[in-house]
């Protein structure tokens, strides 16, 4: 249904469960994809799986000089940059009273500041093209809060406010900026939870199960598509009913 033929998409965190699936789905819709992440090996494996129209663009998002250079590298590799998916994220969980400045700052740097920098870096080309899609991956935790995740929740809520502000500024130029807020999705990040934690979470999810990365990727695909041109500044919650916002 959604055709992205001729569009070029940069996906950060493509070495992870959700990012990899987002890249697969955009690629399957016809887009050329730039796969970014810190670990080169899974990126190379994904690129090999996808075949043509896939480019590996390693980048450590805690290295701001590398972040600033990434949009230009993506354009050099793909020819243009029409779709940006800021998916990469880290967690450094700790109780608020025990959270160190470093735990706070590193999560803000990677999850919020690098998203800001990448959005800024892709705007020029999108404004000239009068077409662009920016999709920032937030989290249900950004809307509801979560004990032990003061830093992560702050960054993810920050992403939503930032996306809305940017959406205002560039809507008249054919650029949409939206957020997707996953609930609990089966990935390496949620595998770290103990069985007791998982059982407790499950009681809060009306759907009675964790989500699949493909269910996040489908939301991203919709927001990236030409059909979603009139959707901007919104947050699409994909959480099995865990928080009905």
């Amino acid at each position, binding site marked *: 249904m959604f055709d992205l033929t001729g569009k070029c998409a940069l996906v950060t965190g493509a070495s992870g469960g959700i990012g990899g699936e987002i890249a697969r789905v955009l690629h399957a819709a016809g887009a050329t994809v730039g796969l970014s992440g810190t670990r080169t090996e899974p990126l190379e494996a994904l690129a090999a799986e996808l075949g043509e129209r896939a480019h590996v663009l390693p980048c450590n998002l805690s290295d701001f000089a590398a972040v600033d250079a990434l949009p230009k590298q993506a354009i050099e590799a793909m020819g243009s940059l029409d779709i940006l998916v800021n998916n990469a994220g880290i967690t450094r969980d700790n109780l608020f009273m025990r959270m160190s400045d470093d735990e706070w700052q590193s999560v803000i740097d990677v999850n919020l500041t690098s998203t800001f920098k990448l959005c800024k870096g892709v705007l020029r080309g999108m*404004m000239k093209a009068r077409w662009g899609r920016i999709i920032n991956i937030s989290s249900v935790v950004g809307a509801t809060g979560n004990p032990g995740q003061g830093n992560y929740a702050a960054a993810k809520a920050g992403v939503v406010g930032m996306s809305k502000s940017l959406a205002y500024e560039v809507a008249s130029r054919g650029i949409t900026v939206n957020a997707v807020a996953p609930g609990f999705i089966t990935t390496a990040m949620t595998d770290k939870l103990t069985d007791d934690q998982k059982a407790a979470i499950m009681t809060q999810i009306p759907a009675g199960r964790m989500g699949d990365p493909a269910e996040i990727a489908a939301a991203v695909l919709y927001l990236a598509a030409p059909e979603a041109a009139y959707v901007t500044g919104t947050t699409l919650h994909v959480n099995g009913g865990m928080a009905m916002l």
Partner: protein
Amino acid sequence: MSDVANRVKKIVVEHLGVEESKVVDNASFIDDLGADSLDTVELVMAFEEEFGIEIPDDAAETIQTFGDAVGFISNA
């Protein structure tokens, strides 16, 4: 009118869709030519490309009128 002024005028006319006669030295992009703040950013981007120069943000803020733009670019 200088070559620079002519090229700047062409960009302004095309981007803002205004009549050439309105693009005079003291014409303010925002107050007289109907630009919004994002238009001024785009104009600066267009000037940078047309003339192969870099206009830093703090300098861009000083370019308020057609005359400012021609003056800045001529001295760049």
